[in-house]
């Protein structure tokens, strides 16, 4: 039996091979499917989660190595119904296309702003370099990070963004 602390909850795991990457434990055993698989070789960042606040590639971390550490996944970013500043900025800037990479992007961005609340473009490029977006939403990711950094809090999303006509 193994104990894990995920998104503030203490969980017990039975019958899981110790070398199982945290990614597959989250997805298959705990039903936390927000964390995604994209490459399995630490190239794409779709599986990014936090261990004690540090962004890591969950496809590379065996579950045996995370006992006693605080694990945060994309499901743990919002406070109940209230989206985090970055999540709200992602909605307000309509960042996603297919959306598959975005959990990983949000986890990397959240870790960035936690240590550097007002990053430059170059610092954003560097911090986000481990996350691939195949749909190419990089410009919007960057805008959303900057907006979240600027306001410190997102604006209420209304679905219809702004009034400008095409």
């Amino acid at each position: 039996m193994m104990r894990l602390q995920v998104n503030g909850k203490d969980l017990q795991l039975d019958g899981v091979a110790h070398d199982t990457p945290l990614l597959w434990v989250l997805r298959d055993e705990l039903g936390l499917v927000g964390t995604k698989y994209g490459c399995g070789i630490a190239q794409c960042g779709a599986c990014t989660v936090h261990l004690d606040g540090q962004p890591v590639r969950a496809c590379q971390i065996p579950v045996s190595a995370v006992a006693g550490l605080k694990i945060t996944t994309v499901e743990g970013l919002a406070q109940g119904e209230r989206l985090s500043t970055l999540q709200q900025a992602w909605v307000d800037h309509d960042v996603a296309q297919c959306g598959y990479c975005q959990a990983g992007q949000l986890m990397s961005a959240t870790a960035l702003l936690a240590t550097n609340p007002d990053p430059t473009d170059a610092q954003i490029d560097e911090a986000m370099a481990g996350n691939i977006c195949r749909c190419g939403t990089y410009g919007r990711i960057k805008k959303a990070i900057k907006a979240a950094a600027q306001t410190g809090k997102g604006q209420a999303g209304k679905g219809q963004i702004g009034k400008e006509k095409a």
Partner: protein
Amino acid sequence: MDGEQFNQMMLGAGPGTGADVAPGMLPNLSRRGFIKVAGGAAGGLVLGLSLGVPGDAQAQSGPPPRPFVPGAFVRIAPDGKITLISKNPEIGQGIKTGFGVILAEELDAKWSDVTVAQAEVNAAVYGMQIAGGSMSTPLAWDELRHAGAGARAMLVAAAAQQWGVPVSELATSESTVIHAASGRKASYGSLATAAAALPVPDIRSLKLKARKDYKLIGQRFTGVDNPAIVTGKPLFALDVQLPGMRYASIEKCPSVGGKAKSFNADEIKRLPGIIDAFIIEGTPPVADVMKTGVLPGVAIIGKNTWAVLSARKALKVEWDTATASKDSWTGFVQQARALSKKPQGETVVKAKGDVEKALATAKSKTVEAFYQFGFVAHAQLEPQNTVAWFKDGAVELWAPMQLPDAALVGAAAGLPADKVKLNQMRVGGGFGRRLMNDFVCEAAYLSRRVDGPVKVVWTREDDMRHDAYRVGGFMGYRAGIDAQGKLAAFDAHMVTFKDTASGKVSKGGGISPNEFPADYVDDYRASQSFLPLSTPVVWWRAPGSNTMAWVQQSFLHEVAVAAGRDHVEFLVELFGRKSGTGAPTNRGLDPDRAIGVIKLAAEKAGWGKRLPKGHHHGLAFYFSHLGHIAEVAEVSVDASKKVTVHKVTVAADVGPVINLSAAENQCEGSVVDAIGTMALEVTMENGAAQQANFDRYPLPRMAVAPKVETHFVQSDRSPTGLGEPVFPPAVPAICNAIHAATGHRIRTLPITKEGFTLA
């Protein structure tokens, strides 16, 4: 729609048709549509719309009549909640939001009252439910507007009846019917149940809004699934979990088409978490790659993903490669270069005037060039996967599909189409790969075989090694310039591929008789020769166009440079030769719309104006998927040949934009895709792909993304799609800028082959 029409649709009503849109593709609703309506079980209004009037002889050539199904497009509950139904797959192109906006506009709904739901997969109700060819918007535009307007008309009629006033005195706004004279108002919710009991309006009586009256269309909307995406809700097929579900993964022969002879079954079955392992023979080979079913291999069934992936590492398979591909990219390159120097058995696809004579007597000079581009992978970020549950003689599946195909999937499991229920999941990237259903077939087959729920998972390596790629190719050009520096003669010889399985030109390969500039020069010839291809290839974002634009628009820039002419002036003169003729040329290309976007892109980018030191402009235009697009790239190249794309200005004429935010997102993403793909290739040797993951197929990252500025030409034409047409001109625009910066002409893709890299 027959196979050839379908192909034309994937190509964007493209090369070969000579027509704007293949006949029978676009429904003519104003002539032959009707609306039906019914009260929902719980009250409220549910509205369906059906194409085709039974007995209408003219309808015979179009899509068959579809039965009415309550709630197929619009559902309004008595509490005022409005559910609009999006019938096509959402693959990141934003169609779910866009379809919602179109329906809501004509319904005159308040956007915050609206929820958009994914339609069930049901060809009888919705016809072909496809994300392909950038055709979702143009094909559904009339249908959705009529569905929205039809529901609105019924709500207005209900209010008129309740208040005893004529319909003509009523107006609508934000989910409310208003009688201005008396100041009365009624919400759609309060009218819905009464409206459902009223007769259905004749579709011809519906008055659609004029563009100036749009309240929603053209504004920015955040995607309807964004809140679920940012909170990690299960949206994708890979996220589906069923009770007692097993996990499956299939090892396939690295050389495409090989079969498993034997493997270390005893050892594999003893591994922890492994339930079973067996050889799959696969479904019989097919000529059409789109009908690929189950490929041969070794299937491993286990209790979780990691168990099956670990077991695969311990697999030792003996492959029978007798039927496997022997394709070699280096071999193709050698053969193509030889063929291009000395064409043999070439097919002339178009000839007019006397191109040889014109070239020999060119008053000014001739220009010659040979271009080469490799194969690339789709590499959608969500690898192939499907969840299937076979029980009681039927199979239900949850899959990331661009083109659900119940008959094909059923056949893989030995079941008729009516025993297959497909659930359309949000697709984690499409790019054309999920127009195939091979992975869905695998899940159906394995679920029946293990008699229970199963999730089929492909690794990234499976996905890249067993992609059906974008086809590579080669193009030799010759052009003659007259004494005024004008393009006078044009010869194109393409070395392209034919699939060995079908004997047909590989999807996305070949040159069309109507390719630009066929209609614009008097002495013109286009011909092609073929190499046999066993490697599967299929549609890849803007198929054909994504490479044709690069060779053609790069070469035309070569001609402009050789003629000593400004590139914008050169292109405007060339298109101007057919200006004002009215008739579209080159499969729907309108020369005046072309000139419009070329001038717009140049003006907005500051063409000819001073740029920061070391920055250079390049421009290109291409027409594909019914969109006229011009782009100007601002590029610098450093001493070590590192290319930085600083900014791309996009001018797009795609009719009125539905959701401005999604439209800009598609433009930004297409530009990033185009830049990244310039530096990528999949090469094959002995039939096996040499790249299998992002370490050797490095997709672009954030630092590569330029500023993208988009300008849309708004018009009263019908809107056309944006998932594809912005990609093709981006590549030549950047290469033309590289030439401006360095004097070096990129004639090989990926650019790494010529020593260039992306910064």
